[in-house]
């Protein structure tokens, strides 16, 4: 095998020494021969001998020079290059020497660039990942704080993303969940048409669609450059429509009779004026008739104006800028706005909902507290909500005397400089169709300032905000096969799976034992969704035996007031949507939920059967043993609850997945076959 590059040093030296030796020896023989032949003397003889040795000496000296100035530096360079390639961070070697000395700066440059590029490459990946994660986190935060409800669905109308506002908007609707179809959430007929006609350039289309007793305005747009994904945003059009159809329409209609009666009135007055000039007795009856007309029309006009006043009042109550507020939120927001000296509003009494323009109210109360504090000791205020008829009263309470009306009247002229167009206090009061007054409390110690505001029919505190980063998007959903493709050929990883478990009054389901708790969770794209759960107690309509309470910890009191099984099953069926079911020892749980009226005719995966099929030789296929075998983590206290066990089952499924795939079991069909065989064997061995 021949290789390029430098020959070995020993060979070069050997060659050189041989060449030099031969030349010197040849020179010596030649010199001796010439000496014998010519028999020179003196200088001639010396010249002859030196001349004969000159060739060998030259070869020796040139070799020596080449070795020192070229071959040794070349060898060193080779070593340095090799070291540089193998380990760029190795300590620096000597710079090139001999005739290669001039290469020194170039080599240094190459080495330094190589080192810098290499470290840049190493950090670039980490930086890229970090920045991608940061961008993702910022986008997620942005989406979650966005007040517009929005959904993103893929070309098969499966939900890939939704934000917190959408969750609030569709609260109570079980159709909202990753991987679920849009039609589970919204009536699809009108939507389907709009979706099929959506232009690809991202321009929006609007439509109105009914949903849960509301009219929703939906704005749809196809995401440009995507795989047919669609972004939907929602607003509740019911309010503005009822406004348009209600008070506004009535107001517009009021104008017609108003014109009518005014016309009658002015015409009658004109006629009466003309009659005055013909002051004879013939006209007295006519005059009386005109006077009656004027009286009638005047009264009707008065009534109409009163009605319009009422309508305008209603309109203000329904005003779009007045939004529902939870009083505790309001007091807190107000307290945060007040300057630290006058802070400390303590909400007392029962909190309630009311309607108002929050920024305007806060500016108003801010000004009010400043006004009050000029009179009163700095002892803080209490905020209380009192309920009235159709109204709530926002009361600010302090220790001291009531404010005199003339001061309040004066204060109402104050401009609120922090609000747009600098309205006066009175303007904000008018906007809320409200007024303000002060009264002393019965205890003789306290006084309060009262502002009535429109109440709204809403019960209970606002929903607790969701945990900071729940799972709300999964763009892998778009890569799932289209929903109409045969489920059987679905890859296991792409399956939507709902893992479920039941707790029952006992094990004898055929003898009247029944479900008391049903829990389920969802696996989408081989990922267990943390927050997408179904967790429902069931009223068994019979006492729970203490023996079974020992296992699941549920007592009669725990299930009191829970819905009956058929209602829960209907909801559970909705929750499943198009997913397949998963359970451990599914036969039992399926029997527990086999109930007249609700059909669960969907494929069922059983982790017990799969485990048996995979590890025939092993014992212990119960959930506890398997959780230990696969080192599945679950929070303490969650086992033997329906939801807790459903989660462990889902984790178990995810642990079994790679083992199934390693054996070439990739589709649902193959899995169901495997499962069926395990079932047969078990039956055979049992019999």
């Amino acid at each position, binding site marked *: 095998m021949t290789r390029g590059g430098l020959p070995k040093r020993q060979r070069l030296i050997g060659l050189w020494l041989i060449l030099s030796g031969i030349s010197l020896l040849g020179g010596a023989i030649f010199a001796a021969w010439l000496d014998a032949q010519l028999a020179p003397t003196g200088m001639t003889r010396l010249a002859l001998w030196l001349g004969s040795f000159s060739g060998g000496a030259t070869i020796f000296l040139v070799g020596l020079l080449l070795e020192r100035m070229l071959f040794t530096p070349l060898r060193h360079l080779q070593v340095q290059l090799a070291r540089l390639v193998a380990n760029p961070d190795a300590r620096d070697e000597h710079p090139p020497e001999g005739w290669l000395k001039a290469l020194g700066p170039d080599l240094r440059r190459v080495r330094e660039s190589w080192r810098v590029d290499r470290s840049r490459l190493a950090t670039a990946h980490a930086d890229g990942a970090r920045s991608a994660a940061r961008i993702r986190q910022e986008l997620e935060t942005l989406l979650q704080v966005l007040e517009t409800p929005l959904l993103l669905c893929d070309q098969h109308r499966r939900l890939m993303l939704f934000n917190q506002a959408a969750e609030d908007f569709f609260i109570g609707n079980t159709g909202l969940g990753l991987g679920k179809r849009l039609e589970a959430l919204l009536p699809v007929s009108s939507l389907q048409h709009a979706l099929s006609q959506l232009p690809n350039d991202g321009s929006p289309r609007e439509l109105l669609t009914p949903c849960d007793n509301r009219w929703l305005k939906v704005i749809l747009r196809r995401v440009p450059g995507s795989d047919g994904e669609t972004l939907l945003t929602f607003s509740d059009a019911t309010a503005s429509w009822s406004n348009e159809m209600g008070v506004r329409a009535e107001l517009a209609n009021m*104008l*017609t009779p108003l*014109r009518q009666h005014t016309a*009658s*009135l002015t*015409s*009658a007055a*004109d006629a009466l004026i003309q009659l005055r000039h013909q002051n004879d007795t013939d006209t007295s009856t006519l005059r009386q008739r005109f006077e009656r*007309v004027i009286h*009638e029309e005047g009264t009707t006009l008065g009534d109409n104006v009163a009605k319009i006043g009422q309508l305008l009042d209603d309109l203000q109550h329904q005003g779009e800028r007045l939004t529902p507020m939870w009083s505790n939120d309001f007091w807190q927001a107000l307290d945060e706005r007040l300057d630290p000296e006058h802070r400390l509003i303590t909400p007392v009494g029962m909190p309630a909902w009311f309607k108002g323009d929050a920024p305007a109210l806060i500016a108003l109360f801010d000004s009010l507290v400043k006004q009050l504090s000029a009179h009163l000791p700095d002892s803080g205020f209490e905020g209380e909500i009192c309920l009235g008829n159709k109204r709530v009263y926002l009361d600010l309470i302090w220790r001291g005397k009531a404010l005199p009306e003339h001061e309040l009247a004066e204060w109402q002229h104050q401009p609120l400089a922090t609000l747009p167009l600098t309205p006066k206090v009175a303007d904000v009061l008018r906007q809320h169709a409200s007024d303000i007054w002060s009264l002393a409390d019965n205890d003789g110690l306290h006084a309060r300032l009262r502002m009535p505001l429109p109440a709204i029919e809403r019960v209970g505190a606002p929903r607790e905000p969701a945990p900071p980063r729940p799972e709300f998007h999964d763009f892998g959903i778009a890569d799932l096969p289209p929903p109409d493709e045969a489920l059987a050929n679905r890859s296991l990883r792409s399956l939507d799976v709902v893992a479920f478990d039941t707790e029952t009054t006992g094990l004898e389901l055929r003898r009247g034992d029944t479900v008391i708790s049903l829990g389920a969770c969802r696996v989408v794209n081989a990922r267990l969704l943390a927050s997408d759960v179904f967790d429902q107690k069931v009223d068994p309509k019979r006492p729970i035996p203490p023996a079974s309470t020992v296992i699941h910890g549920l007592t009669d009191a725990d299930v009191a007031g829970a819905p009956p099984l058929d209602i829960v099953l209907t909801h559970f069926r909705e929750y499943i949507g198009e997913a397949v079911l998963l359970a451990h020892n599914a036969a039992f749980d399926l029997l527990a939920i086999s109930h007249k009226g609700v059909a669960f005719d969907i494929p069922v995966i059983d982790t017990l059967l799969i485990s048996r099929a995979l590890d025939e030789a092993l014992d212990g296929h119960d959930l506890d043993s398997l959780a230990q075998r696969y080192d599945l983590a679950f929070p303490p206290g969650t086992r033997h609850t329906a939801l807790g066990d459903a989660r462990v089952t889902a984790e178990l499924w995810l642990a079994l997945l790679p083992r199934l795939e390693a054996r070439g079991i990739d589709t649902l069909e193959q899995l169901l076959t495997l499962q069926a065989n395990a079932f047969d064997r078990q039956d055979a061995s049992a019999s």
Partner: protein
Amino acid sequence: MAKVLVVDDEPNIVLSLEFLMEQAGFEVVTAEDGEQALEQVSAASPDLLLLDISLPGMSGFDVLERLRSQDATAQLPIIMLTAHGRDVEREKGMALGADDYITKPFSTQSLVEKVKALLAEDQP
């Protein structure tokens, strides 16, 4: 003496209009709905119509359209009276062939002037 037909279902305004038109020197006949108006047009052959738009049953627009479709009344001066002040109604009235359009409430003086002007135009 020119004859004016006042069509309105509000007796209060009919009373005033009748009196004012008489004072202005016109003979006045009245009708309180669309059918009556059409009958009066053929029976009394008025020279001008004051026609309210919102009438019980047949609307003022309807009456206007019918009168304009008959040769005998195609040129009859008609002033529409209405308590609806919307532009679109004015446009509709004019499009259907009204000679003028007056929104309630109105000045009786200018109404009388309009009637006189229209009648003068009609009989040069």
